[in-house]
């Protein structure tokens, strides 16, 4: 009796059995995005900040720190190894990158109008996939917390630094206070408004003592009528900063500035220099065209008090003066009996609040009757800065390795 060999059946490993890699990470990311989209359809756009901050902190930090500790204690465990490994990190980073790509191409107004998203970056799919990336990042730090070797220190500086900066950024996003105050000279104010124009009482009384503005000298443009161009004009880039006595070439034309008034007015017969801040600049030019013809006349950029003036070179060509551009603007403020100066790139810091020069009456320029100041309180900032400086340290160490030839 011959024995018949029966084929042995080997059970095919399931999708989630054995080694976990890119495929499982892809499924996880797609599922998370789908859940995010379902949240969007279910509860709509809701800023996560509607929940108390401590609830979000506990819900967000517990899994992340749990994974970090687990990765430290049992780095070889199959799921932990996968969650803190490169395939999961690369997949979540790709998903965040693709979502960011969409946000980098489609304007915010389209997201708001078509998809009901006041902020694309606060949408459920982006937040949830971003959280997966953070989970992977924090978990991977757990794996290399110890021993304190040079390689691990460099690793932690860049990875843990990024994780801290992201966590600080999330905390900032939840607690940030950003309000604006419109200040009129000599009138103390205590009311500030948010982006929805809701009024709040300011933490201190602010008085605008002075608004100061400096402008660059104006530039000029050679404009030629061109029916093919969208606005019907072809304009040479404004290059020459006008001042008395200079001679320069502008698009083949030799331009000499014979007179220049920083503030000028036309009295019907002549252009005169005037002491009014609101008056526009004017210049008397002598222009030699490429074909040797000479033209001269006044040009002015125009202001609320002065009509603009231009110098015709041909029937279809003229020289125009561009309005002067701001060089510097700042506000002198009095707050709680002390004087502060707030300018662009020069914020003032008062009792946990940062004050920024936001805007002014652009039509009036230097004669603006008001100044807009932004008041910001960001409690997450020290955490973010701690993360940023760790990352900078990590980047410098990596740079040293790169130049030193370490791979």
């Amino acid at each position, binding site marked *: 009796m011959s024995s018949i060999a029966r084929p042995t059946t080997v059970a095919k490993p399931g999708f989630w059995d054995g080694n976990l890699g890119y495929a499982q990470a892809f499924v996880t990311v797609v599922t998370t995005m789908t859940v995010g989209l379902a949240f969007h359809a279910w509860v709509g756009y809701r800023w996560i900040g509607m929940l108390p901050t401590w609830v979000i902190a506990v819900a967000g930090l517990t899994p992340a720190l749990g994974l970090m500790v687990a990765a430290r204690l049992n780095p070889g465990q199959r799921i932990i190894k996968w969650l803190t490994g490169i395939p999961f990190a690369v997949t979540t980073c790709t998903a965040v*990158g693709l979502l960011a790509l969409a946000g980098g191409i*489609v304007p915010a107004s389209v997201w708001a109008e078509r998809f009901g998203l006041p902020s694309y970056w606060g949408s459920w799919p982006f937040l949830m996939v971003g959280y997966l990336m953070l989970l992977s990042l924090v978990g991977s730090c757990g794996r290399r917390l110890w021993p304190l070797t040079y390689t691990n220190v460099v690793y932690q500086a860049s990875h843990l630094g990024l994780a801290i900066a992201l966590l600080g950024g999330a905390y900032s996003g939840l607690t940030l206070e950003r309000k604006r105050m419109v200040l009129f000279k000599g009138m103390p104010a205590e009311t500030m408004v948010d982006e929805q124009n809701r009024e709040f009482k300011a933490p201190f009384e602010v008085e605008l003592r002075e608004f100061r503005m400096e402008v660059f000298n104006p530039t000029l443009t050679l404009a030629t009528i061109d029916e093919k161009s969208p606005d019907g004009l072809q304009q040479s*880039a404004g290059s020459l900063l006008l001042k008395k006595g200079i001679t320069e070439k502008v698009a083949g034309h030799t331009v000499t500035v014979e007179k220049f008034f920083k503030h000028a007015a036309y009295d019907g017969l002549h252009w005169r220099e005037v002491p009014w801040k609101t008056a526009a600049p004017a210049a008397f030019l002598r222009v030699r065209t490429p074909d040797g013809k000479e033209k001269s006349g006044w040009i002015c950029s125009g202001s609320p008090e002065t009509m603009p003036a231009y110098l015709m070179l041909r029937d279809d060509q003229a020289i125009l003066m561009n309005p002067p551009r701001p*060089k510097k603007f700042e506000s002198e403020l009095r707050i709680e009996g002390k004087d502060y100066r707030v300018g662009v*790139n020069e914020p003032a810091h008062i009792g946990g609040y940062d004050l920024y020069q936001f805007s002014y009456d652009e039509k009036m320029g230097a004669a603006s009757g008001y100044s807009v100041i932004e008041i910001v309180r960001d409690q997450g900032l020290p955490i973010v800065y701690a993360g940023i400086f760790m990352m900078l340290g990590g980047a410098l160490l990596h740079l040293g390795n790169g130049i030193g030839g370490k791979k």
Partner: protein
Amino acid sequence: MNATLAYVAVGSWTLAAGMYAWRRRPWMADLVAMIGVFAGAMLLGLLWASLGRPPMRTLGETRWWYAVCVPLLGVLIGWRFQTRVLAVPSMLMGVMFALFNLRHPEYMDRTLMPALQSPWFVPHVVVYMVAYSALGLSSAVAAWNWAGRLIRRQPLQIEDTDVPHRLVLIGLPLLTCGLLFGALWAKEAWGHYWTWDPKETWAFLTWMAYLMYLHLRQKHPLKPALTLGALIVGFGVLMACWFGVNYLPTAQESVHTYTQPE
């Protein structure tokens, strides 16, 4: 004077590329390349003096920095790692960017808006330009090596990824520093370090693209096509961040429109 210096730089780099390709007396080619770098640096210095501000505002100005940095890095990294792989691509990239600038100068405007008048301006742009140069060069060498293998009908080898990888190890930390300097500057200027402005978003995407390259290289060191391909994609994202973002629908919402000539 500016145009003369630009032509000296272009001429030197073209000559140096030819000498490197000829493969004789490479030290002389280094010397010629450095004459071009010197002419380019003088051009930037003269521009700085004539504009009365750092020549780092418009795309044309940053292109000049790039045109000078790439050949300089090509020579310096060649010396440091004793390799000539970078020589021809770096010279040709310098020539390409310089010629483009001679055609479209875009550095005429002497004004500098208040937000750009900050101590962060120069370090932020310089660090970014050196990073862009190293990363651009890494992609150029990757493409050069790949093309060489294709022409010789050979498969890619692991050593083809060596120099491009070394360049990323220099470029990515600098890119990180540039990104973080930008965040610290934005906090001083606008009150927030990150607002997902379109330019910031593309800077983030560029950073992510190179981070992913680094992780892929770590995980799959024996797959040169994958890693070199990632580098070429990364450079595409970098160029989109530098130039392309100005032509996207989101450009109108960016506060970084000062890179465009007015």
